[in-house]
């Protein structure tokens, strides 16, 4: 089983990438977390461009394939102006088309977030859940706001706060359960 991790932050030393690593460490045996780190290579979404050569654009093809190949999606996002970073929203826009066959449809998905303020990107996470739900993903209602992110991780990359660590375990566990249910449903459908 595979979870695809997307970090909404592009910068090196991103707290949200650190959060994805902490989530990876919380996964049960037999589940891997694969990150797709190329949000910056995607052009701005343009329907003309998508129609003319969407699948021929290598980063677009790679993004859609990475989502299709995963059993679940985990987004870790910072908050820019109380919302999602543009690059992340742009990637979700590319992934959502064409709507009827988009690889996020029915895909279990969860959003976590880290910010250096007190509120742990809680508004961006809500926006992320809204966007994923609109795309048709099977979105977990749970959130994980990691505030004061510059102090949130220990040297081993774990969340320092035991409550946050437990909450991440629960969220990741729920996401994996949802993915197992979804996989079982597909097998039943195919049989």
């Amino acid at each position, binding site marked *: 089983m595979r979870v695809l991790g997307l970090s909404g932050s592009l910068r090196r030393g991103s707290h949200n990438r650190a959060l994805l690593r902490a989530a990876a460490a919380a996964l049960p045996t037999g589940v891997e977390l694969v990150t797709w780190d190329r949000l910056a290579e995607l052009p701005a979404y343009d329907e003309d461009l998508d129609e003319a050569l969407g699948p021929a654009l290598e980063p677009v093809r790679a993004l859609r394939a990475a989502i299709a190949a995963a059993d679940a999606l985990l987004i870790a996002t910072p908050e820019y102006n109380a919302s999602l970073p543009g690059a992340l929203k742009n990637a979700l826009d590319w992934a959502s088309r064409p709507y009827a066959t988009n690889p996020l449809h029915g895909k279990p998905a969860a959003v976590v977030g880290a910010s*250096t*303020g*007190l*509120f742990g990107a*809680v*508004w961006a996470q*809500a926006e992320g859940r809204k966007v994923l739900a609109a795309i048709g993903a099977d979105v977990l209602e749970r*959130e994980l*706001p990691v505030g004061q992110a*510059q102090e949130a991780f220990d040297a081993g990359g774990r969340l320092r706060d035991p409550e946050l660590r437990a909450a991440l375990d629960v969220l990741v566990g729920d996401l994996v359960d949802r993915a197992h249910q979804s996989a079982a449903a597909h097998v039943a459908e195919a049989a």
Partner: protein
Amino acid sequence: MTAIATQPLTGAYTADPVHSSFAFAVRYMGVSTFRGTLDGVTASLTAGPDGVALEGAAQVESISIRAPQQFRDHVLSADFFDVASHPRVVFRSTDVALGDDGRAKVDGELTIRGVSLPVRAEGTWAPEAETLSGRRAHLSLETTVDRTAYGLAWNADLPSGGKALANDVTLTIELALVATAPTEA
């Protein structure tokens, strides 16, 4: 109700900045508590025949929120302290009662962001003692203020309902008081 000692403290005292603090605590996201301090505190206490008077000030720039810069900038901005126009938090007592039982009650006026409002702080005090570093006494006080009454009004709706930041802020003041002049015989 509280019995008042006749001469609990005598003369003038200043707060030792290393062992004194002005701390605040505020709940955020409904569940967590954020704590910080203003470290640059000056205070003086004068005890004479007319009673006890307490005055203090804290530099807003000395707030313990130093990083990340964006967080510090927001707290010092007009959304909160507006430090450019109001660099100091100031307190001036109108009535100080130091009870025989060690309890303290201080009424006075607290000025934050240019707004002066009456407050009552309660706590404990320790009478003067001769120590290695001079004659010392201590005063511990706590009070709760509504930050919005002082114009520190920033807030935001949480996506799951409720407000991001509580209005009530608990202030905790510790003053390590050092006698500045010898007691008159």
